[in-house]
């Protein structure tokens, strides 16, 4: 699972009002190269919760994302490369996603988060 997906996911448990962002529990992270596409990054930039992406990338050991952003940064190739790397190339392979409100653990195996809810969570 890439951080792009992590940035979109939110805990869906019944009664949870703010299930975002899910905390990362990292046992194994991997990097996979992905083609660089500026248009996609610009399309995504407005939708990304920046702080969550910064925190997640740091948890994964990548510290190059700036804390603050402004739209003008989208003109900087250097910034876009970092954004690209954090968003699409860092994968959580083994570990878990933790609901920020209930601490419920969603295990991640072979890069696939198990988001299935128990009956009493629906």
């Amino acid at each position, binding site marked *: 699972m890439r951080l792009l997906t992590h940035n979109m996911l*939110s805990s*869906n448990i019944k009664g949870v009002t703010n299930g975002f962002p899910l905390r990362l529990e990292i046992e194994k992270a991997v990097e996979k190269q992905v083609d660089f596409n500026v248009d996609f990054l610009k399309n995504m930039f407005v939708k990304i919760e920046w702080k969550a992406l910064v925190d997640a990338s740091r948890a994964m050991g990548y510290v190059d994302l700036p804390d603050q952003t402004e739209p003008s940064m989208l003109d900087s190739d250097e910034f876009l490369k970092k954004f690209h790397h954090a968003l*699409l190339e860092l994968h959580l392979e083994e570990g878990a996603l933790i609901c920020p409100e209930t601490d419920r653990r969603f295990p991640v195996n072979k890069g*696939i988060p198990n988001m299935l809810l128990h009956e009493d969570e629906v």
Partner: protein
Amino acid sequence: MSSRPELQAPPEIFYDDVEARKYTSSSRIIEIQAQLSGRALELLALPDDGVPRLLLDIGCGSGLSGETLSESGHQWIGLDISHSMLDVALEREVEGDLLLGDMGQGLGIRPGVIDGAISISAVQWLCNADKSSHEPRLRLKAFFGSLYRCLARGARAVFQVYPENLAQRELILGFAMRAGFAGGVVIDFPHSTKRRKEYLVLTCGPPSVNTAVPKGKGEDGESCSDDESSEDEENRMVCISDRRRPRKLQKITKKGKGREWILKKKEQMRRKGNVVPPDTKYTARKRKSRF
């Protein structure tokens, strides 16, 4: 004989390791799913600007449908309830991210972030109650409500579905509308039992020009058989749903079948070994109106 997998077992049981492998190694299935996904992507009507979008593939299975999205350069997140199907997707090194999840529990995705969603041959599963705790209506409601929320305004969701009957289609569509979607059903090749395919085309947000339901393929008023050569791929029409289909078109279809056509069809069926009533002077005669 029931060949509907939905009636045999819950999806996570039906699509076990054996079935997942069988499914994904059939060249016929691969081809059909690619065609269906291609058409769904076309119906999503994403802006033609070359910008890759973030899409959802609901019931992504082993990634056959997602592959079509990748080929068009899009990023996608796939959700499926079958572990075995997702394992095959991993083996095939699909480019999308995969989630193990049940669409009937609702999608845990932030509001307004998804540019479009497709679902190929999966949503009809929601109409079954596979566990005592399952209430199809609640599951449809949770699914469509959460889908509506996570889509960007104006974004579309296109589902190719195999509803068991008209009532099931209306049930699915009804819950989509209740969640706030506008849209309807597009039927490709409505007169061919083999090639007939249904797509729910839903738009997020208030009705506007781009919520109009696009045209179906292969409706030319003449062909009403499985005779594929007689179907004109270019000829399309709007099919909102059978219920609302214009009367006129149904009539044209009827006029197209003369005595000759019927005799030809009957001969074809005989050659296939079917039991067909003999040809008589009554063949192809119009029935007297009874009332």
